């Protein structure tokens, strides 16, 4: 691209002139050739649509003779193997299926980028189960990248899933997904550094908090609240309302009110005192509270956002039956209680609360693990978006968070 410049002083100046022009001409011709070739080649780099038919992308199930299940999950989202009677060992004992477990999901979008090329072209990703948040699960299901579950193989799921999580718009009959854990998004603050915080809008405009606030970096997490702040319903809003919400947020960012948009990192900043309040996930805060009782999680006036991370079986999975056995295992209330006692997120399994009585009575009345119906009634989710909408909104979002 840069080309080599002719070296100076390569000969008498008279000869240099001739040489230079000839070289210029040659270089010009070369440039034209490259340009011409590029015009021909570039269109070949187009991409086909990534939507697939799950039926065509199913792999023969080898569960019978290959007793293995490959699971991808978020870090710290299951009780550790060193614990006596942990849920994974229990699963292996019960079913004889070996678990190969990796915590390689750190971010929905990033994970999407990781599997996009394979799943988009009907190739296996070497996993039997992956845990993705609602909107990403919805997107993958609509792209046809996941396998339908055999209803008969997961009776516990259909019997025990708590009511508020049933009938989601993107998979009303639990055909493709099973919630792994559920959480609430709300507001957390450090009571030692600031007074009580009652609403999300305070995060955006309380001058006492200026520069000491973080929000979550996933668009749906934060924009659901921003929409609430401008009086819109995140489950059903108009383009104008979206615009208002984005402007509201943009103002907070350009005023220097918001220090950062983060993933889990807000935990360190909150603990270190670099921030005094933030948008937060319930389970994280419960764990942080064990170390620092000054940290409080509150349901702001705007309400709480309810979300789930869901188990999905990707196309090309070779051990679907084993994966279904895994799902069913974790919908056994006793197993679910044991898991909830460790991860501290909302347990999506009916009957786990009763099991928890035997396990750890102190957690039974924690409404961030077993919320009551009244609390769940005021939660909200984010409207399903089609791909064009999602892209346009994400672009607005990165425009704001990109300063």
């Amino acid at each position: 691209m840069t080309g080599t410049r002719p070296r100076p002083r390569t000969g008498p100046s008279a000869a240099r002139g001739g040489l230079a022009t000839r070289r210029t001409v040659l270089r010009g011709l070369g440039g034209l050739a490259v340009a011409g070739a590029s015009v021909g080649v570039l269109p070949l780099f187009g991409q086909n649509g990534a939507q697939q038919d799950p039926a065509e992308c199913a792999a023969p199930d080898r569960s019978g003779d290959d007793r293995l299940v490959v699971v991808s999950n978020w870090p710290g989202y299951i009780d550790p193997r060193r614990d006596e009677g942990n849920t994974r060992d229990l699963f292996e004992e019960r079913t004889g299926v070996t678990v190969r477990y990796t915590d390689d999901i750190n971010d929905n979008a990033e994970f999407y980028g990781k599997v996009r090329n394979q799943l988009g072209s009907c190739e296996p990703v070497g996993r039997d189960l992956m845990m993705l948040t609602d909107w990403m699960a919805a997107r993958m299901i609509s792209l046809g990248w996941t396998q339908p579950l055999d209803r008969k193989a997961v009776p516990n799921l259909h019997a025990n899933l708590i009511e508020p999580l049933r009938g989601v718009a993107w998979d009303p009959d639990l055909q493709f997904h099973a919630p792994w854990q559920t959480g609430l998004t709300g507001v957390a603050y450090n009571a030692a550094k600031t007074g009580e915080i009652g609403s999300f809008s305070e995060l955006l405009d309380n001058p006492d908090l200026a520069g000491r606030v973080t929000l979550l970096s996933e668009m749906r997490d934060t924009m659901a609240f921003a929409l609430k702040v401008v009086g819109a319903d995140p489950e059903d809003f108009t383009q104008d309302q979206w615009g208002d919400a984005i402007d509201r947020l943009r103002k907070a960012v350009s005023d220097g009110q918001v220090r950062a948009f983060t993933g889990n990192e807000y935990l360190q900043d909150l603990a270190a005192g670099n921030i005094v309040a933030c948008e937060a996930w319930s389970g994280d805060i419960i764990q942080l509270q064990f170390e620092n009782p000054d940290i409080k999680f509150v349901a702001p006036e705007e309400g709480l956002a309810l979300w789930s991370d869901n188990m999905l079986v990707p196309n090309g999975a070779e051990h679907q039956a084993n994966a279904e056995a895994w799902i069913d295992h974790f919908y056994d209330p006793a197993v679910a209680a044991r898991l909830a006692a460790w991860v501290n997120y909302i347990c999506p399994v009916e009957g786990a609360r009763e099991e928890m009585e035997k396990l750890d009575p102190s957690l039974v009345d924690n409404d961030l693990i077993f919320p009551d119906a009244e609390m769940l009634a005021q939660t909200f989710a984010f409207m399903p978006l089609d791909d064009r909408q999602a892209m346009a909104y994400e672009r607005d979002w990165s425009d704001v968070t990109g300063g």
Partner: protein
Amino acid sequence: MTSTAGVAPPLEAAPLPPDTGRRRGRTGYLLLLPGLLWLVLFFVVPFYSLVATSLYDPAGSDFRGYEMTWAVGNYVDALGEYWRPLLRSLWYGAIATLFCLVLGYVLAYAIAFKAGRWKNLMLVLVVAPFFTSFLVRTLSWKLILADDGWVVGTLQFLQVLGDDGRLLATPVAVVAGLTYNFLPFMVLPLYASLDKIDPRLVEASSDLYAHPAVGFFKVTWPLSLPGVVSGTLLTFIPASGDYINAELLGSPNQRMVGGVIQSLFTDANDYPAAAALSMVLMMLIVVMVLVYVRRAGTEDLL
């Protein structure tokens, strides 16, 4: 040739002189082949793919697929929307490079001329930060500059910072992080080029009535220009494309173009805009480098 030498008749084993030349030429090209292949596979193809992506129909999506429709408008859109982080990246990169140059020059000069037998140890120390991960090093700056940390405390005590002043989430922290992280890229080429300078040249300038300061600017500095040029390039290019420092030490108001490209690519899945922005950044840097190298007039010295 050696493998067949035992079997082949002697006539073949001793090629005629004109043949030798041609064969040597062919061997040269054969030896070039792996490198060329590597270049095509890992540079040319991805580069074309990036160019094509930047010209995709912006109406495309993962559902529909993407068509290369020469959508030059992507560039206009990307520039229109993201010129701020773009300029900010170049600006932060330039300031960090300047700081690196000043700090790095002093350090490299000390190592080259004053370190004596400590030279190797000091060079190892310059490189030592590379033994830990980039991310960990940047995160530790977060601890150093924390709002309740001693650095901020001291600056507040000295009234350099206001009582609720802070360093994290300000351009100061981002530039400090960039400076720290890319300093070795500046020191090493500077050292290489300072170490080559014959100390007698400095003596000669002194002998010829140059005050040490004048001697430095008339002799040492121009002779170290190749190191200055390669050091500033090695610092500026990655620093202006970096987004980790801005992400971890800055706030959204300090976001750099690398971060924007990353989030356009992974979060928004807006590949055309991400690719167009990458191309703009790349072209800007290439142009700046070309102008810079020519202006510095270091072609003969390089």
